[in-house]
């Protein structure tokens, strides 16, 4: 069986779509909070096949997109420092900071910026460059944070003192709470992120059903996964029975990955964090636990994140909160394109503006 294709079976998908069409009584607005879901929905063409009264909104699910202006300004400050090598996943290279600055430009002007596929590569970089500080940009959700925590533990075991991490990690459940607390948010159901959930499991999402009466389904990234999750939510709404369901059992254990969480919380602890377009959300970020502070790039290099406001004219904040469709932004496809992005939602391959630009026929 070819698992890369089986979960996109056209016949089964058509069946689920027909069933959903039949059972959907009221208009239904669902939000996904994972960039991979955003792309999957567009890439498979699912957005052109959903029932007319089912609306898809992309939430703050791309770690690059929610990285705050002040955080971008911080890593640009670090890139400009002497004897500092920035190690980063590729997506961050073109994220715009104040005055259109970005890492790619910084690199062209002489900063040492290395794109890595894994934080372990950054560790190797630190070993090979003992006279430099190697700063790994820790941007991401619960999915990538444990690997970075494990890398920090390895650096400690190996006695490497020139490996540092800029910890701007973010946590998904507090952000969902922040979204629902906004009276303008009108979300009837959540497609929950499959990758993040492999780590955190089912429990942290229970408040969605219990406190806010919103159904939610953890799901995978193939068309059948997404359609099944939508159908489950439609049925929950029809029955007035709201639950949080694990619809991705082939990858996600209900209890998540306790080992990964243990490593994560040995190295990091929750803190308040800034989200682009949303502002500060209590308890939604990670910072260093006291005994690992010597790996904290901010502390070691003595840097304080500067104040930085939204980019002029950019509506990424409204897009991230699901209040504006990307193609309704006045800058979309005009001043803001993937080649020349104004906001982060257009930079990341998993940003919702980039997905609209790349896949949507009418916009």
């Amino acid at each position, binding site marked *: 069986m*070819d698992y*890369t*294709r089986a979960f*996109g079976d*056209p016949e089964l*998908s*058509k069946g689920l779509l027909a069933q959903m069409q039949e059972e959907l009584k009221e208009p239904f607005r669902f939000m996904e909070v994972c*960039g*991979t879901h955003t792309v999957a929905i*567009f*890439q*498979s*063409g*699912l*957005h*052109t*096949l959903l029932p007319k009264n089912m609306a898809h909104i992309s939430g703050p699910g791309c*770690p*690059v997109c929610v990285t705050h202006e002040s955080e971008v300004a911080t890593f640009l400050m670090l890139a400009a420092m002497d004897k500092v090598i920035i190690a980063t*996943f*590729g*997506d*961050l*290279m*073109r994220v715009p900071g104040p005055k259109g600055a970005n890492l790619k430009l910084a690199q062209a002007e002489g900063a040492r910026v290395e*794109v890595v*596929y894994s934080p372990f590569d950054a560790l190797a970089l630190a070993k090979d460059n003992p006279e430099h500080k190697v700063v790994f940009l820790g*941007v*991401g*959700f619960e*999915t*990538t944070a444990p690997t970075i925590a494990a890398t920090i533990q390895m650096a400690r075991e190996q006695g490497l003192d020139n490996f540092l991490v800029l910890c701007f990690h973010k946590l998904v459940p507090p952000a969902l709470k922040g979204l629902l607390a906004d009276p303008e948010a009108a979300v009837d159901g959540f497609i929950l992120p499959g*990758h993040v959930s492999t780590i955190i499991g089912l429990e942290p999402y229970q408040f969605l059903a219990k406190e806010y009466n919103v159904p939610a389904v953890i799901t995978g990234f193939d*068309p059948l996964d997404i359609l099944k999750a939508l159908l489950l939510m439609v049925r929950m709404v029809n029955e007035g029975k709201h639950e949080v369901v694990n619809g991705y059992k082939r990858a996600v254990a209900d209890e998540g990955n306790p080992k990964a969480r243990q490593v994560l919380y040995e190295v990091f602890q929750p803190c308040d964090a800034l989200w682009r377009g949303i502002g500060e959300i209590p308890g939604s970020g990670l910072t260093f636990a006291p005994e690992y502070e010597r790996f904290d790039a901010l502390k070691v290099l003595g840097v304080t994140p500067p104040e930085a406001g939204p980019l002029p004219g950019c509506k990424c904040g409204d897009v991230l909160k699901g209040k504006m469709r990307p193609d309704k932004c006045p800058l979309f496809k005009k001043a803001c*394109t*993937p*080649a020349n992005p104004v906001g982060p939602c257009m930079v*990341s*391959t*998993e940003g919702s503006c980039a997905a609209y*630009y*790349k*896949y*949507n*026929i009418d916009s």
Partner: protein
Amino acid sequence: MAGETLLLDYGSGGRASQRLVSELFVSRFKNPVLDELNDAARLDISGPVAMSTDSFTVDPIFFPGGDIGSLAVHGTVNDVAMLGARPKYLSCGFLLEEGLDMDILTRIVDSMAGAAEHAGVIIATGDTKVVPRGALDKIFINTTGIGEIFVDPCPAGQLAAPGDAVIISGTMGDHGLTILAQREGLTFDAPLESDCASLNHLIERLILEVGDIHVLRDPTRGGLATTLNEIAGQSATAMIVEEDSIPVNPAVSSGCSFLGLDPLYLANEGKLICVLPQAKADKALELLHSDPLGKNARIIGQVEAGDGQGPARAGQVVLKTRLGGHRLLSMLEGEQLPRIC
């Protein structure tokens, strides 16, 4: 010269250069035009001529399925052939880094000679420069090719017309993913191999035996998606492509899924896109299937007017997905970067 290391002297124009030219290049590229060793090559050529140039900087220089030398021949031969021309002569300029192992250079030159012989082209003239260590990475090669155009009108992006079929000669993304995997030291269960090959003989048969070929293009950098967009733009037509009919090697497909890449944007170095009237499509397919370089050829879609009757507007490429939905297949923006999560 085996076992030697390349010194700056070899690019000096003096005796050392002469030795390099005669012992390495002339002896391997052996042909009467090059053997003359005058300041310029004297070529016999008539009628309209196609000319194309390309510089090759691939890293790593050796990869499964080829190397920088064979690629430098195939790449330029293919570009010339896509215009409906019979490639005849190549020039080749070597930019070499001081300290390069002579055995490596020899392997590359051997490979170029083999590729040129296979494609039936003559390496008529060349140049060698050696630059100080660090000024470039090991070896860069520039090749320029010329060939006689043997069809009128010659295939061109502007000629794609509503009602045409779109054919590709085989699987997409093999070269791009092979290079990326080598560069990053990634290994996959199934072997990956570049598709790097000269397509001129196959193209000649297509044009002479099938005829009425409107467009021929090789989907190199930017991949199938980018090249189709170029054609749609040049011809002001809409293209509708079926996802399910685009052949992709299973190893490429799973590697791409793992790395967050799309095979339709990855480079190919031995594949062609052929746009021709629907009525000729079966004949073209039959011919392609009879050649090892076209054995996985498929009709992947059709050209439409883009006047509001179909899902795409003129200038757009629309992909009909496996599920039956439609989405834009847009042009590559910048390089594909690995995803963050």
